Each structure stands twice: as structure tokens, then as C-alpha cells.
């Protein structure tokens, strides 16, 4: 269905593993990582169309990881997710370069729709 590979990054491993299973069942190629550093390493190995990225994590924080991804892999779309919104970060989505900024818990069907939209934005995506 989709050519794009998805990378889910969150220190909540229960969340990443379950979301991975849900997405895979829908035909996505999904990988999961539990830290920003691991996510960047995975991106170095192979490209991803979309990264679903948690904002608050031990170690590298979401915005830092986002900036690193945008520098090294500008074609990759990033969807930020957070347990709480602060500092009006949602309004800053275009400037940070994120595709979307979502508040947890975000309904899974809506999340999948946004992932699809992000994949469609990816350069070279067919259809």
C-alpha cells in the first residue's frame, strides 16, 4: 500500500511496540526506537519517509532530534507527539519543520490519516 517506511520514537516502549503492530497490520513498514539517539542512528542506516517522534524523552529531546533529522534528512517528514503542550509550541510547527504536532492521546485512526498525508508529502512518493 505504501512505499514509505515509518520510524516510531518514544521512551514509552509499550506505546511504540503496540503502535508498530497496529501500523504493520495496515501494511506499513515500521521500525521502533526508544530514544532520539537510536532514532538518528536508524536514519543513518536507511531512509524513512515519516518519523513519529515523542517530545519529552530522557537524553535528546524531541525538538533536538527533529532539528538533526531536518539537517541530515530534509525529505523525511516528522510528526511530533507530546504528553503536554507547553509554550504554544503547536503554533510553531511550520518554523520547526515538523509536519504536525499532536497531543497524546491522539486517536489512532486520525494519527494514521496524518501519517498517510505525511507519506504523500514525501518527495518521490507515488500516487
Amino acid at each position, binding site marked *: 500500500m505504501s512505499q514509505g517506511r515509518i520510524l516510531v520514537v518514544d521512551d*514509552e516502549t*509499550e*506505546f511504540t511496540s*503496540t*503502535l508498530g*503492530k*497496529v501500523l504493520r*497490520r495496515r501494511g506499513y513498514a515500521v521500525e521502533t526506537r526508544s530514544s532520539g539517539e537510536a532514532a538518528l542512528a536508524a536514519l543513518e542506516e536507511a531512509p524513512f519517509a515519516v518519523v513519529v517522534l515523542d517530545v*519529552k*524523552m*530522557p*537524553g535528546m*529531546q524531541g525538538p533536538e532530534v527533529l532539528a538533526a533529522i531536518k539537517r541530515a534528512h530534509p525529505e523525511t517528514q516528522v510528526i511530533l*507527539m*507530546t*504528553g*503536554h503542550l*507547553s*509554550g504554544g509550541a503547536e503554533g510553531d510547527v511550520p518554523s520547526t519543520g515538523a509536519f504536525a504536532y499532536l*497531543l*497524546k*492521546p*491522539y*486517536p*489512532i*485512526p486520525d494519527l494514521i490519516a496524518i501519517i498517510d498525508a505525511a507519506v504523500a508529502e514525501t518527495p518521490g512518493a507515488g500516487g
Partner: protein
Amino acid sequence: MIGESYRVLFRSLVRRLLLVSILPLLVIASANFLLFYSLNRSIVLEQHASLLSYHRQSIEAFLASITAELTNLAQAYSLEELRRGDLERVFRVIQQQGIVFTDIGIIDSAGNHLKYVGPYDLSGKNYRNTAWFAEVVGKGVCVSEMFLGFRGVPHFVVAIKRQDKGDFWILRATFNTDYFSTLVSGARIGKTGEAFIVDSRGLYQTKTRFASALLAPSGCPDLTPHEGIRVRRASVGGTRYLFTTTWLSDPHWMLVFRQEESDVFSPLRSATLIGIVMSAGGVIGAGVLAVAVARDLVRRIALADREKEALTQRLVATGKTAAVGEMSAGLAHEINNPLATIDTLQTWIRDLAGGAPIAEEDRQEILDSAAKIGEQVVRCKAITQGLLKFARRVESKPEEVDLNALLAELATIMRSRARVEGITLSTDFSQVPPVIASPSNLQQIFMNLVNNAVDAVAGRPGGEVKIASRLDGGKVRVDVADNGAGIPPENLSKIFLPFFTTKPIGQGTGLGLAICHGLVHELGGSLSVESVPGKGTTMTVLLPKAPGAGQRKTENA
């Protein structure tokens, strides 16, 4: 307790106000008294002196004039003319001129009375052996001291010697002292001031204002002739007198002005009395004013204190809201994360259950997922229960509080926030006695401190916050330590100031530590900070233990 502190303030204000108003009053009053005393004394002495010198001049002028008059008479008439009858005429003429002498007579060189005009029968008397006779023979002129003489009445004599053909005769007039008495006793000052004349033996030569007998001893302290005017104080018959004296050039009479000292200084006494009354009035007035001013000031201060109290309470409420807001951000994150997991799990269950029939491995997966949902619910429940437990401490009245229990609850809910930030929050409690405080205030104090500590290490790798309690010198000590960047030395003095914050606008009110400081002080404790830049900050709260604590066993929640 508050009323007592106002009473202390009131008393201290009254004391100070009295001091600043009464001290100058007394200084001025004393200065006035001394000034008036010396002024009064110099005026009195001046007055006595001028009175005395005026009268001396009058008496000397009078004596000079009668001496001159008699000299003229002796020169103008021959002995024969006078003996024939001119003496009677001359006596009348002189008396008509207003010169008051008692009698006049002529005495020959042997001392025999040749001729006499006057009220007494003195013919045939001989004066050879009298003091005045010797003096007039020697000096040509004599003004005698007062004596009784043949007539037995006090009088004095003015005698002139007239050379006549190898012999001499003497013209003699006698004066009673009424004239002098009138002249001198006119000099009166005050109630007791009187002037009189004494001779070289100190006997009265004139009648005094208070009718002492002539030739009675006057009690004058010093009868040594002296130049000019002299002032002496002496006690006569138990009364203290001020004597002002001067000597006539001739005869040897001393003119005396005598006044009781109490009378001399009676203006001073009345002025002193008036001064004392006025000063007392001033003191009473100052006292009344001081009390009124102090009362008004204390009332205003009490009013300001109440307003400040109300303001502080509003501030505390605001700070509480801010602290809860800060904490709730972490809590929201902690609850939203499991919710997101639960949401994902329920989607997964739906996916698995959607196919029919359900494969055995999917059935197991569904059960696993349901169990995982249960785990997430337990996680959420722990958070909400901790929050509820924390929120239950709404009591704002002071009571005995087990600090360790309160800190443990706080640590539980703060741990959620800490975990989000990747921070280790640890506790290290020793057994401590209870403290007397409002639990809600204690919560606010430590919530602020822990929030600040978490903020200090948020986003730093290896961030740690440690809450520790122990007994320190009879006080309960709580340390909230972080290993963050520390507080720059230039900010250390400002951190307890209201509205001082280094957090971005909208994220910190700058009230937290100011309120903590206020609350801790209200509890009779102290809040201090120790910070090493690059190493971290430790906030230390010292609270007095509850009275009687220690006998009872601490109850742990």
C-alpha cells in the same frame, strides 16, 4: 501575641516621643532659670548700688551745704553781733530755708556755751571734753557721730571754728536725725529692703523702715571702712540678709542697704514657680501628645500590617495556583502517556478481534494487550491517588504535622514530573519530631522548592533532586538539593525577592521563593540557600519542632 508586640511598640514610641519632647523642654527651662537667676541678681545688685550711691551723694551734698551755710554764717557775723541777737534771726532764716536743725549755739575756746538758741536749756554747759570739740579745735570743721549728749536725745553736731583776734569761738548746730531718716528710709525695695546709716561702731544713726531704735546695734557684718560699694551676705538673727554698703567720706558713717535674701530673690522664686508650672504643663502636654501620636501611629501600623497580611494571603494564593499549575504540567504528561498507550492497545485489540474467527495466537495477543491496558490503568491510578492524597491536605489551620509523611506524598507526585524530565528524585528521611504548621502551607513551601529544583535540572543528563530530612540542633531540617547549574552569585541575594525570576516570561511568577520565605518565617523557621555554580543548589528549611515533641512517638503516614 500580636497585640503584645503592638503594646511594646506603643510603649517604645511613647518613651522616644517623651524623650525628644521633654529633654529639650527641660534643657531650655534650666537654661532659662540660670539666665534669669544671674540677670535677676545683677539687676538687684545694680539697683542696690545705684540707690546707695544716689543717697550717699544726697547726704554728702546735704552735709556739705549745711557746713558751708554755717561757715558763711561764722564768717559773716562777728561774735558780738551774734551774741547780741543776730543768732536768733539767723536761726529763723536758716530754718525758713528748709534746713532742719534743732538748735544753734556759740561756744568759746574754753568750751563754755556763750549763746544758745533752741528748745533745750543748755546754758552753762561745758564741752571741753567732748569728742567733737576736740575735733573741731583740731580740724576747724566737725560733723560728729550721733550721741545722746546733755539733752539725752540722739543727735549729731556740725561745728565750725572761727579765728577771732588770737582766740577762737565755735558756731555749733545740732541736728536730729529725722531728716536723714526720712531721706534714707525713702529708699525701699521689695518687702524688706531698707536703707539706714550706721556709725563706725555699727550703731543705727537713722531710724529704719522697721523702726529699730536709734543707736541700737545694727548687726552689720563688716565695719571696716572701704572704698566704693561692697556687697555682703550675712545671717542676722537666723535670717539671711544681703548687705550693700558704702562709706561716706566725712563723717565716718556707713550707708547700708539691707534686704532679706528671700525677698531679694523673690522674683526669681516666683519666676521659678511659674517656670516649673509651665514646664510641668509642657511635660503633661508632651505626654498627652506623645500618647496620642503613638496611639495613632500604632493604629496606622496595625492597619498597614493587616493590609499587608491580606496582600500576603492573596499572594500566597496566587503562588499556590502557580505552583499547582507547574506541577499539573508534569502530571498531565504522566497521565497522557499511559492514555496514549491504552488508546493504541485498544486499537490493536479491535484490529485483532476484527477477523473471524479469531486465531488462537491473536486471542493470546488480545489477552496480553488487555493486561497491558490494566498495567497502564494502575499507573494512572497511582498518579491520581497520589494527587488526591496530596490535595486532601487542605487544612490551613496549624496542627501537628509529620513532615516525612508530607514530603513522601509530595515526592510521589513530583516523581511523575521528574521522570518526564529524565530526573531522578530521591528521598532520604531521618526520624524527625512533628512540627506545628498548616499542612497546606507546608505543601506550598516544599512544592515550590521541589518544583524549582526540578526546573534547575530539567533536560540535563543525570539530573538529580534529593529531598532529605533530619534533626539539626533541636530544629527540623529539610534540604532540597539539585545538581543543576547553580545560582550565579549575583542572583543569590535576590532570589527571595518577590517577582524575581530567571524563567521565561509566562513560566515563572517570581513569587515562589518569596512566598516560601514568608511562610517559613511565619512558622518561626528560616529558609536559606547554598549554591555552587556548576555543582547545584541546596535550599534548607529549618522549622522549630512542636512543643513537647520527642516524648511522643512520631506517627508515620
